[in-house]
């Protein structure tokens, strides 16, 4: 039960928890969290496999890939949150539109 195997199995468990969580929630932000957890599960398996080098430092190539993977997963989370925020705002406007005067859109993006 060498260390890399423990973390690889933990990454697999993370992946399955995240994937099942992704499908069992309706709330948008919860689903974003679930997709984030699924991603980090996959990355954990990748780095754990990189640790299988019998002697010397672990294999740097998966490390570089996972490094980019984390930054991309953050940007996809941020995009997801931005989309969720827009949906929340539209829903709110749909339910409260009668009393509100038509909102003038602010200055450019």
């Amino acid at each position, binding site marked *: 039960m060498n*260390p890399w195997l*423990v*973390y690889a*199995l*933990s990454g*697999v*468990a993370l*992946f*399955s*928890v*995240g994937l*099942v*969580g992704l499908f*069992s*929630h309706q*709330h948008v*932000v*919860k689903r974003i*969290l679930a997709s984030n*957890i699924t991603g980090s599960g996959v*990355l*954990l398996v990748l*780095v*754990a*496999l*990189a*640790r*299988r*080098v019998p002697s*010397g*430092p*672990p*294999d*740097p190539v998966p*490390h*570089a*890939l*996972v*490094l*980019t993977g984390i*930054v*991309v997963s*953050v*940007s996809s*989370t*941020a*995009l997801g*949150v*931005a989309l*969720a*925020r827009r949906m929340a*705002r539209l829903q*709110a*406007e749909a339910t*409260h539109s009668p009393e509100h005067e038509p*909102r003038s859109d*602010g*200055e*450019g*993006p």
Partner: protein
Amino acid sequence: MDGLLDGCLALCLPLLAYLVLRTESLSQAVVLFVAFGLLSALGWARLEAPDIALVEAAVGTGLTGALLMHTLSWTEETPPDVRARARRRPWALLAMAALTLLLGWAVLALPADSPGLGLEVDARREDSGVKHPVTAVLLNFRGYDTLLEIAVLLVAALGARAVNPRSERASSEAAKDPLTGELFRMMTPALLLVAGYLVWVGDHGPGGAFQAGAILAGGGVVAILTSRMGTPRMSSLRVRWALLTGPLLFIGVAVAPLFSGGRLLEFPEKYAGTLIFIVEMALTVTIAMVLLMFFPGTRPPRTGRGSAR
């Protein structure tokens, strides 16, 4: 003792992830998720991947935590129908267990020790211009990935900005708050220093553009939240140039060897080190600005109350 620490950490990660997804209230889920980010950073540290622990720390505590806290302010805590969730829970647990066993068996079938590409990277590391293998792979051997990844970041930033066009004005009342002002004044020099240090150390140790960019973005988030700086507007030229310096410089450096007979992304050996350092500085600025663009600024008023705008 090492086995105990690894075993406990490896056990707690999925446990904490399950807790994050099982809780009903969103606020508890967000806080648990921040704790999950921390534990995964410890996991990377134990797996001898300091670069990844650094990125996870810089991005997890800096950006994701603040961004998810922001979601607390505009999402209504929709009361979930607990009965339906309770009815489905055994099935969910069964699915998780089945998936884990299946994939776990696949992982167990892998050979226990494989040399990986470490030797090839070390063999060619001299002419990559940097001494640290991960940076060499990131910016030289697999520079193509990093180049496209910067494009992915730009697209995500443009998308986030297009979807939330209105960046609200920071309310002036928060600007007079002495406490956060002092915090901002104290943090900024330290953040800039550590960001510069990380870009420099990326040459021969774990560090680099991503970590430094995330740290600068964390400082920027504090600046926005303490209304020392307005939300970066896409219409201002400075923001656009900050977004474009990294990719343009990287593409320029990548395409330049084509004219002198070399292949795409083939850094000339003599200047590889300095070229990589310049590209990393530009990438730091771009990544910091991109991560900052994700932050929509101040909290919109509760939609329930008539917003006196």
